[in-house]
């Protein structure tokens, strides 16, 4: 039975991985920022503001990757009932929400010079906002019950329902006329972006991924400790 599986093995693995991930995060982000902010060319159209891209685009990618993590963990929790999957889902949603918030804020900062407004209610922007709401709803729902397991299961169902939003985010620029520009890096038929911009972009993306991993492990560890504490308190009252 999975319920009796001991999560200490996972924790040992995670602890071993943690320093390497943290080092990778520092290295990748450092070199990415250095290349991106100082060494890459300014855009012929956008000028220096293009450098927001190195913060904005990977954050938007991680917002979606975070939700994918959340949805997969939720599926695993509902199917195999493994408590670790519950912890992973709970850990993923605030991290994903943070990346979503970064993407929204940097997008807004970018929009001001590019489109002349902080915010427009177009399909891409709106669906990302919905993503943020889904994260918030997930966090609120999982914590709204006295019994944490009940909260975990309700949250898992919600996370799966929200998966429909992911393709909408990804393809909204193709399906509707939007201000936001269509995919130029990750698209069928090859990238349309200058390689001098590609390199720092991918360094940053790798760095964000490492940060996500570090944060996830730290959150899972904290949640696990919290749950153990609760169990100890409960078993004391049994005495």
């Amino acid at each position: 039975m999975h319920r009796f599986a001991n999560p200490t093995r996972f924790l040992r693995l995670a602890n071993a991985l943690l320093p390497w991930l943290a080092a990778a995060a520092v290295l990748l982000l450092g070199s990415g920022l250095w290349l991106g902010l100082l060494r890459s060319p300014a855009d012929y159209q956008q000028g220096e503001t293009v450098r927001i891209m190195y913060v904005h685009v990977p954050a938007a990618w991680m917002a979606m990757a975070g939700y994918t993590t959340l949805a997969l963990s939720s599926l695993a929790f509902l199917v195999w009932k493994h408590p670790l999957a519950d912890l992973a889902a709970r850990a993923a949603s605030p991290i994903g929400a943070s990346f979503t918030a970064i993407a929204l804020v940097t997008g807004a900062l970018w929009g001001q010079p590019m489109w002349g407004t902080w915010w427009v209610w177009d399909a891409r922007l709106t669906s990302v906002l919905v993503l943020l709401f889904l994260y918030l709803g997930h966090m609120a729902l999982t914590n709204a019950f006295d019994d944490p397991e009940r909260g975990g299961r309700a949250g898992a169902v919600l996370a799966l329902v929200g998966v429909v939003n992911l393709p909408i985010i990804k393809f909204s620029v193709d399906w509707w006329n939007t201000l936001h520009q269509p995919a130029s890096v990750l698209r069928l038929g090859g990238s349309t972006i200058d390689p001098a911009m590609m390199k720092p972009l991918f360094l940053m993306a790798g760095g964000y991924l490492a940060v996500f991993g570090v944060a996830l492990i730290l959150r899972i560890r904290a949640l696990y400790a919290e749950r153990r504490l609760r169990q100890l308190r409960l078993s004391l009252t049994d005495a």
Partner: protein
Amino acid sequence: MNGFLALIGRDLRLARRQGADVAMTLAFFVVVVALFPLGLGPTPALLARIAGGVLWVTALLAAMLSFDRLFQQDADDGGLDLLALSGLPLVLVALAKAVAHWLTTGLPTVLLAPLLALTLDLPAAAYPALVIGLLLGTPTVSLLGTVGAALVVGARRAGVLVALIVLPLTIPVLIFGVAAVEAGGAGLPIQPHLTLLAALLAAAIPLAPLAAGAALRQAVE
């Protein structure tokens, strides 16, 4: 199938006996819609411009008011256990609840909307889009609300929580619904928008009860 109809029948009868929920929804609808001319000043051009949006947003919010009670009342009095043990699959329980909800809140809203549109000076050409759009959109809202209601059974502050969960999911309905009204008012074809609304409904009819049924199973266990 018999059990399915019986459940709808019971909920309709309860709604008729109590009356409060339907009246509350409708009164809220009227008051909020009435507020806009009062608050914005009766500039007909402005009102006409925002009429579609106001009616749609308000219809959506009015539906939210009743969702938290949809299953919670049954859960509190033990009735949810009984439904789970009725032999009727929980997916059908959820669907029946959604149907009853739509009949008691969605349908009255649809019927009331054209009347309220009059007070907002909605262009005459926009009425078909408004009514057909609501007719196609409000069932989707009821279905999505059923998912939210099933998820928050037993949660604290369920009323706000259910709105927080359901509203983002209903945004596409809102966008296409309003787009249809605007297109109608501007003399553009409304059919593409209505088709999208119908597509959303067609997707929601099987999927939402599935999700809601799964959520109810979590709630009783």
